[in-house]
């Protein structure tokens, strides 16, 4: 198997009475496509928040590329090459789509000269190309606030991709997309990830998507992994079918 790039070890986090992470552990290897599935409130988003520095675990550690990133800020972790998209898209709503991407580009390239105009960034074409890949080129000059949720989710992912992360967490990438478009969206995303050799972990509720795009599946329950395996193993696992997928055997 290829190199281990991220490891979460026994993460614990309690919110009042809720144990949102309860010994959560996961090993991620280069070029994997890991799907995280599990019921609402299982702690999937919390896990992403812990791995990307938004929340600090009360116990446990996170390693990325061999170094301990548990105590680092989201900013520092992002700079190391971990990207993320959000369950609720986090975008600059008053700006255009391309401006959102260009700001990410400027962050990546550290181009902060006050004499450079953002819309004249020398690598602007690269961002248009990225928009093209995710099928949003036509919306490039629209203000994000005016766009529907499904598009915003894609823009959110595109912004994360613009940073060229080695590893990306995507929190329910297809949740705002109608069911017949999900495959199309995942196809484009997979293409973009493959082209950049980006490893991906995504939270997903649609089992058809999981079956088709995941290389490995982790079933979340009660703040930790309950089952883990290939999509085939997991989706045919009787217990998982009952508790997560909601179909009796």
């Amino acid at each position: 198997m290829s190199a281990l790039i991220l490891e979460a070890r026994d993460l614990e986090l309690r919110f009042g009475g809720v144990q949102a992470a309860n010994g959560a552990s996961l090993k991620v290897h280069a070029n994997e496509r890991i799907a995280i599935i599990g019921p609402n409130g299982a702690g999937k988003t919390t896990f992403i928040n812990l791995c990307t520095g938004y929340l600090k675990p009360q116990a446990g550690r996170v390693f990325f590329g061999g170094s301990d990133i548990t105590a680092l800020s989201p900013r520092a972790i992002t700079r190391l090459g971990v990207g993320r998209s959000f369950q609720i898209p986090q975008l600059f709503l008053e700006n255009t789509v391309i401006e959102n991407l260009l700001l990410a580009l400027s962050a990546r390239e550290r181009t902060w000269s006050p004499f450079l105009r953002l819309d004249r960034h020398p690598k602007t074409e690269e961002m248009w190309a990225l928009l093209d890949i995710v099928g949003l080129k036509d919306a490039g000059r629209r203000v994000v606030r005016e766009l529907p949720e499904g598009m915003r989710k894609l823009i959110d992912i595109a912004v994360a991709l613009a940073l060229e992360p080695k590893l990306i967490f995507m929190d329910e990438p297809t949740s705002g997309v109608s069911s017949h478009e999900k495959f199309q969206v995942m196809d484009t995303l997979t293409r973009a990830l493959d082209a950049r050799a980006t490893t991906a972990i995504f939270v997903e509720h649609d089992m058809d998507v999981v079956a088709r795009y995941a290389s490995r599946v982790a079933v979340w329950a009660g703040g930790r992994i309950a089952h883990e395996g290939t999509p085939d193993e997991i989706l045919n696992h009787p217990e998982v079918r009952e508790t997560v997928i909601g179909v009796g055997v």
Partner: protein
Amino acid sequence: MARQLIIGAGLLAALIIFPLLSPWSTVILTVALCEGLAALGILVLLRAGQVSFGHGLYFAFSAYVVAFMAAARFGHEVLILVPVATAASGLLAALVGLFVVRYRAIFFGMLNLAISMVFFSLLEKLFSITGGADGKRVPRPTLAGISLERAEFELWIFYITLGLAVLAALGVARYLLSPGGKALEAIKSNETRLEYLGVSSRKVLFGAYVLSGLLAGLGGAVIALVSGHVTPELAYWVRSGEFVFIAILGGVGGVVGPFLGALMFQIIRGYAAVYAPETWHAVLGVMLLVIIFFAPNGLYGLMTGRKPAGTGQ
């Protein structure tokens, strides 16, 4: 953009001609430019969704630096005093900024207010150094080595300030279009995402804060020169509030806004002095409410016909 340039050029032309037609207006217009500069600093912060009720601090600090240097006859020369005092304000802003950029919204606004009130109290209480509530006189310095008569001096200072204000406005406009300026606006729209781009929102805000301190400082330095006198009142919350008022009145949509606002402010002050001398801040308060509720983009917004932007979150 084109509209911004047209309005800016129109305003500039009017400002160039006006003092020649009516010499009595020179000082008032200079004061307007100084307050416009400070309000431009407020505009920069407002772009990040932050408001400071304490920028009188930098205005006053710079003015007192001018007064002290002038009293010490040290570099008693406009071309030395103004840059030194402005830089001193920038330094002070950097120092205070290290602390305040950790905070947002309420805390940011109130901490700035608190710090400026401390400075105000010190100016009043340390009588032996600052001259207390009476303040300090600022003897007229030379300009490029030449001692000028009062009227000439005022006219020169006006045109120099006008030139500096144009430079400042163009510089700020440029900055706001740059990636750094957009990152500044990102603090207002989504700080979480900004951090997840690997950008330090504190650093971005720090830069903007120092810039705003420099702008207020530049205004304060010139005010000290043209009024020939500095008092603690320059640091009082009322002053700081006026800068915010001017920025909101003019509108934060473009860098011309604060200067439009500052001119309007002088006109209102003129009328208020006649019709409502005791309640002139109440007049400002009422106007502020009217602008916020009915013309949220200010005068500049009215002139450019921009639709009110959504204020909800």
